[in-house]
């Protein structure tokens, strides 16, 4: 399977629209995969990710009149998703048994989805191991660092967009990102 590291959005619809389209269904179709992916990568719980995704669009629908158009729709939706994920993490902070059992399954699943490119089996195995290490490192990051890391390296948001989505200052985002990267790289060093 050939993997693409580019965004899932087509170039024709990639430019950030700052106005809500009349057809809310179109907005859901366009941004749902992104919101779901962020929620799933953050929570590593399929049901919780689905609930967060639905709540995100429900809240967006209810608040559509209050959308001030001072950021892109994508950033606005990610802002709602970040808040919902944060609430959910805080609510389940003590359910660590459930989280631990689920995350180990997710880690395997992530390792299996690595593309089979024109690499030697050894190189492929090494890359799988490195990706699994990043996945594990991302899980052990503090909440803010993980959010910033996922928004930057999975969702391709730039620092300013992350700042808007998380409600942090750009400098704070940068600090969290540096720390996250350092932790991930250290984990990579341990795994190899």
């Amino acid at each position, binding site marked *: 399977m050939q993997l693409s590291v580019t965004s899932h959005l087509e170039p024709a619809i990639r430019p950030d629209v700052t106005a809500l389209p009349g057809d809310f269904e179109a907005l859901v179709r366009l941004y749902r995969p992104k919101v779901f992916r962020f929620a799933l990568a953050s929570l590593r719980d399929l049901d919780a990710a689905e609930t967060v995704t*639905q709540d995100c669009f429900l809240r967006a629908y209810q608040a559509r009149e209050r959308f001030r158009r001072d950021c892109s729709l994508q950033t606005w939706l990610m802002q709602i998703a970040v808040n919902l994920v944060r609430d959910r993490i805080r609510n389940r902070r003590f359910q660590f048994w459930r989280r631990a059992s689920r995350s180990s399954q997710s880690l395997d*699943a992530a390792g299996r989805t690595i593309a089979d490119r024109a690499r030697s089996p050894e190189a492929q195995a090494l890359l799988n191991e490195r990706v699994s290490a990043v996945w594990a490192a991302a899980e052990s990051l503090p909440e803010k660092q993980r959010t910033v890391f996922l928004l930057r390296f999975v969702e391709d948001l730039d620092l300013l967009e992350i700042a808007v989505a998380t409600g942090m200052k750009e400098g704070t985002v940068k600090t969290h990102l540096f720390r996250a990267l350092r932790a991930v790289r250290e984990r990579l060093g341990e795994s190899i």
Partner: protein
Amino acid sequence: MIAHLSSEQLAEWIAGQPSLMVAQHVRDCPACRAELADFRETLGEFRGAVRAWSEDQAGKYRENAVRSNPSALREPRSRTALNRMVSHQLAWALLIAAVCIVASFVLPRPVGRKAPGSDAVLLNQVDTQVSRTVPSSMEPLMKLVVQE
């Protein structure tokens, strides 16, 4: 000239905000360049893996939802979520209307409610008034006339 990039300096580079010194070092040091390329490749693969995994999980979730509720095939979950609020409002409005209609038939009307027998008393009073030959104010005068 620094020996090799530290973790923090590598992070600076990956985050896309390297200092001049770091940028200069990366240009001059093949070892650090190779390490950065490795790191970037790993992060790129990580992104691809998470995206593929997410799509895979979303597909599984839809399959499970359809298996447990076949009507989900006809209506996507996102649509049901968005319409849930509207449906609830409509259901409440219909319920309130039904209660009002039933109440209008069942509950007694407060206007026109009288004690039993009040109609008979009123009719007696009318009969008494009608059967008088003269108005009540002239009754003493009529007594004098009869006595004469």
